């Protein structure tokens, strides 16, 4: 629901005539003036009605002024309140303090309004029997009550609009958050299916077929099939048991093993008690892929990738280590950073981006409740160690 609360700062604060409002060329104009379009005609109609009732004719100037002052006062108040509403706390706040504040402001506004009516009544000569009548006519409990009622009415409507607008903004914000999260999820999925990996695998299959090694080609195809199945599934679960994540890694490593043959050796050490622990889907796969791409592929000698998982009480420790690029010239003298949830960016290679992605996902799943360390290992190579809370699969 639109309301006057969205008035941009450059517009007249109180637009009491339609002529004024039409000047605004801003595209949001219809949205902005909805509130004024209600308040102003309403106040005008009420003013005319009042004039008709007490003067007998709307052409009677004193009656017109009386009506205009009577209702214009509240129209101005409604406009100002509407304008200020976005910056005020909820006016419909019903705490003791809120109610007392409204009582005070309402009384002040009502009394000053009545006084104002009385003061301008003198020169205009309102009422059939002069000012004395007017004084009594204005300052009695009925008039005051009506004034107060109007105040309450305006506050109530403003409160409802304020509340709805805030709720709307809140839901927009949470939608935006959700969108960001699903983007992060998608990025994780894309990262896990590296295009180069896919091309290299297809090349390998082509070669194997060409060389007449059908058995091996079939094996790779079945591994690729398993990877694509879990990657391209529409409804990927957010967390999977560690066993399932390791199966994925097995498939991946089996393919890489064909490419690198004697140069790649893989060791997976898993504590059986850790297998049913839930881990974010595709958490380890990009890390293993990184280890191969940056630790094994550039190395002339045999390289080893060690992936291990163990459970320690209510914590799951995951570790992926590579033996590094042999000579390891670029690894020496690098700063290490072992603070909780910190990332070390290996210069000149892609470690940083992948790990940044991993970290973002860990923050999403565990907030502060995780540790991630990524640093060159003292015996060469690179190590990524992650500790997350152990959550067993629900049975």
């Amino acid at each position: 629901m639109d309301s006057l609360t969205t008035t941009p700062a450059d517009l007249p604060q109180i637009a009491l005539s339609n002529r004024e409002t039409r000047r605004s060329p801003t595209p949001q104009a219809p949205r902005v003036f909805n509130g004024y379009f209600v308040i102003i005609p309403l106040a005008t109609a009420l003013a005319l009605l009042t004039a008709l009732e007490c003067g007998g004719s709307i052409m009677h100037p004193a009656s017109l002024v009386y009506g205009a002052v009577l209702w214009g006062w509240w129209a101005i108040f409604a406009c100002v309140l509407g304008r200020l509403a976005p910056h005020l706390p909820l006016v419909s706040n019903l705490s003791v303090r809120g109610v007392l504040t409204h009582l005070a402001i309402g009384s002040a506004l009502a009394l000053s309004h009545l006084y104002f009516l009385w003061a301008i009544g003198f020169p205009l000569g309102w009422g059939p029997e002069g000012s004395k009548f007017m004084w009594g006519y204005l300052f009695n409990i009925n008039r005051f009550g009506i004034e107060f009622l109007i105040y309450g009415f305006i506050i109530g409507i403003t409160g409802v609009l304020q509340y709805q607008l805030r709720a709307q903004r809140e839901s927009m914000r949470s939608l935006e958050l959700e969108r960001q999260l699903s983007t992060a999820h998608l990025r994780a999925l894309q990262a896990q299916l590296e295009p180069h990996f896919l091309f290299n695998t297809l090349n390998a299959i082509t070669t194997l077929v060409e060389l007449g090694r059908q058995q091996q080609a079939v094996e790779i195809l079945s591994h690729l099939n398993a990877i694509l199945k879990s990657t391209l599934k529409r409804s990927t679960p957010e967390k999977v048991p560690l066993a399932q994540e390791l199966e994925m890694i097995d498939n991946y490593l089996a393919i890489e093993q064909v490419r690198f043959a004697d140069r790649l050796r893989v060791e997976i050490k898993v504590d059986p008690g850790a297998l049913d622990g839930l881990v974010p889907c595709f958490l380890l796969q990009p890390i293993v892929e990184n280890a191969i791409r940056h630790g094994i592929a550039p190395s002339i000698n045999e390289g080893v990738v060690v992936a291990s998982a163990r459970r320690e009480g209510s914590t799951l420790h995951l570790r992926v280590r590579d033996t590094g690029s042999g000579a390891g010239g670029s690894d020496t003298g690098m700063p290490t950073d072992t603070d909780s949830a910190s990332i070390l960016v290996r210069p000149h290679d892609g470690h940083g981006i992948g790990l940044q992605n991993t970290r973002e996902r860990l923050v999403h799943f565990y907030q502060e409740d995780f540790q991630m360390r990524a640093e060159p290992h003292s015996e060469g190579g690179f190590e990524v160690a992650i500790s997350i809370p152990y959550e067993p699969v629900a049975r």
Partner: protein
Amino acid sequence: MKIRALIADDEPLARERLRFQLGSDPDVEIVGECRNGDEVVSFLRVRPDSMHVDVLFLDIQMPGRGGFEAIEQMRRALQSEQNNAKQIPIVVFVTAHDQYAIRAFEVHALDYLTKPVEPVR
């Protein structure tokens, strides 16, 4: 006379494939296989004059010294040896990615093949 070819690739499967494809051509003789740039450089340096290499099938991304670095190294070695008899063989780059193509021709390339290599002409 047969064309004498040297294959350089770090992935065994890729070497095997190239060997298979070149082997089917009776005019081509494969004189050796290397797994990285260093092996290429030493292979070419120690070869006896009789063991001439006509064509070098060179992968660009290899561990240690890659394809480009290997060529650079060969150039420098030849310059220091002042030996005009020895020449860098004709180089055919073999790579899975096409982003190196321009650089390859700038350096010293006869041809540029992207993997998977279709049967060579």
